[in-house]
């Protein structure tokens, strides 16, 4: 059972995630942002629902599209804007861009473009927790596209052999860049692969934040208790292109229309209103709070200095 306080927090995080991404998209379209953007619009329920199951000391390995999950695990949104703007005092000091941020002090890994590299890396993190007898959990995200890669399977197999405290989240958002599910696999659900690794699994409605959060919480606590890894597939829809430049005209319009109706924030807001966890005044207050926080972070980041070119080789080695 998810209590009201948690329900409200999930709502707050989902809407903050969307506010941050909407601002990034707006800056991108105005030509003010540097580099690329990879938005997770439509995936907020999964991004937040799973990562919010983690506790302090647990780690999160996101992909490029899981900026919102980083918010759930505590990244300061200033870091996000600083990184997108390539600023000197950002989390990568201009060495990397977009969502390739992170915060090691909070257990948020700096993701890379190769997917699902966070899977084997998270098995290693989980191995370290086990070897050191620390009651911590590693969580790794990827899309269904990356489940085609061999190292995805290597990670699941090894995690299962050693019964590591790791939770694997697959966000099945129907497209790997432009490739639909049917060109990626012949199974209906990625979790059909779990029995091959004797791994517990769950397929959940990725637009239902409570369902995702409950499944993830169960998996995280099982892992923490020594019960081994879990594979969770959340079925959802990527509502925008692969990246900011991609109009995604390969996605059938009816499909987008269908999923627009299932917008995870809209549905959840109504549910919380029905349950009297939220009221219109609270909704407005949360929106205002997000808007102010996002504007402040974006404005500060845009005004912050760029790195000096003379630093190009600084920090290659420790």
């Amino acid at each position: 059972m998810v209590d009201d306080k948690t329900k409200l927090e999930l709502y707050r995080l989902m809407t903050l995630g969307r506010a941050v991404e909407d601002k990034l998209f707006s800056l991108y379209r105005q030509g003010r942002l540097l580099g690329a953007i990879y938005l997770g619009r439509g995936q907020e329920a999964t991004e937040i629902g799973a990562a919010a199951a983690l506790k302090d000391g647990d780690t999160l390995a996101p992909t490029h599209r899981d900026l919102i999950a980083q918010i759930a695990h505590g990244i300061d949104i200033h870091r996000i804007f600083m990184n997108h703007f390539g600023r000197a005092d950002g989390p990568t000091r201009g060495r990397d861009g977009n969502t390739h941020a992170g915060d090691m002090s909070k257990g948020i890994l700096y993701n890379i473009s190769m997917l699902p590299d966070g899977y084997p890396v998270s098995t290693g993190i989980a191995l370290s927790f086990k070897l050191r007898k620390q009651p911590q959990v590693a969580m790794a995200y990827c899309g269904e596209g990356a489940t085609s890669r061999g190292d995805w399977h290597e990670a699941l197999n090894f995690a299962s052999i050693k019964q590591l405290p790791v939770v694997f989240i697959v966000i099945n958002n129907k497209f790997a860049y432009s490739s639909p599910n049917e060109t990626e696999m012949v199974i209906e659900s990625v979790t059909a692969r779990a029995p091959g690794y004797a791994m517990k699994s769950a397929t959940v409605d990725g637009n239902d934040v409570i369902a995702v959060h409950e499944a993830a919480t169960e998996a995280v606590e099982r892992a923490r208790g020594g019960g081994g890894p879990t594979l969770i597939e959340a079925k959802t829809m990527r509502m925008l292109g692969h990246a900011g430049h991609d109009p995604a005209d390969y996605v059938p319009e009816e499909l987008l229309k269908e999923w627009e109706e299932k917008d995870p924030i809209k549905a959840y807001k109504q549910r919380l209103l029905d349950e009297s966890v939220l009221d219109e005044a609270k909704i407005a207050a949360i929106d205002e709070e997000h808007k102010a926080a996002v504007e402040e972070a974006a404005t500060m980041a845009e005004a912050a200095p760029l790195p000096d070119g003379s630093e190009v080789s600084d920090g290659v080695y420790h």
Partner: protein
Amino acid sequence: MASTTNEEVTFLDAINQALREELDRDQDVFILGEDVAGYGGAFKVTKGLLDDYGPERVIDMPLAEAAIFGSAIGAALMGMRPVAEAQYADFLACGFDYIVNEAAKYHYRSGHPVPVVFRAPSGAGVRGGPFHSASPEAWFAHVPGLKVVVPGTPTDAKGLLKSAIRDDNPVVFLEHKYLYRHEKEVLPEGEYTIPLGKAEIKRQGTDLSIVTYGAMLRRSLDAADKLAERGHSVEVIDLRTIYPWDSEMILESVEKTSRALLVQEDVRTLGIMSEVGAVIADEGFESLDAPVGRVTAPDSPVPFSPPLEDAFIPSVERIVEAAEKTLAF
């Protein structure tokens, strides 16, 4: 566990000693790889470690290089000091992504240390054929963020591996498999390390500087003996660390001898010595009395059949011949 006897120790046992001493020193050090535990590794480098340190410090992995290297990196990010073994250096390619994209670039992007060692047996000379004989040091030396070490003696192998394990950066540590049982010597007494990034003059000379590393060190020293019989005083320098490499010592030597011959077992094009030669040409040009010479393998895969493999690996004769040409210029 430090060896303090006057017995000669093989290159292989020197590496085993380094692993033992680091396992003793630091609880965060552990070993992972294929067949490294009960079997002791394909070459028996990790022999006996399972018995002495247990299955949580010496971990057998499935045949899955991405899982091995990726897991090692994950544990390193949490502050452990994993030593990951690839069964042969050729198989580093199977987990290449993790070494060159994940490990190499993590610190540059985040400022966070990645104290991981990727060990692998490299090199030709054991009739291993095209998939068990590679000298892939140039692949990794070309990736900023990695350090690359290729020792040529048991003493160096032990001291450098200990430094690699203690280093806060990812280190690719290539152990020439021919040396495992062919090189032995009495190791320094007690605890010692050898710093990364420092070359060593293995033989003093005044007429020619031979710069080399790995298994070519022995052949270069043998060539220097032959050249001495003919009245040539040859200096032999072992790079030991391939990146960052000790250009200072090489330039000082060339300033003294005015002639340089660069010897590598790896294929010719864009090998380590291509860079050493370029730096000598760039920064040591005024010292030179002759063009910088190079002895390398040809640009081909490492072949299996003995006449082919013997033609592939630079021989003492070829080194002597090239040295005489450089000396006569």
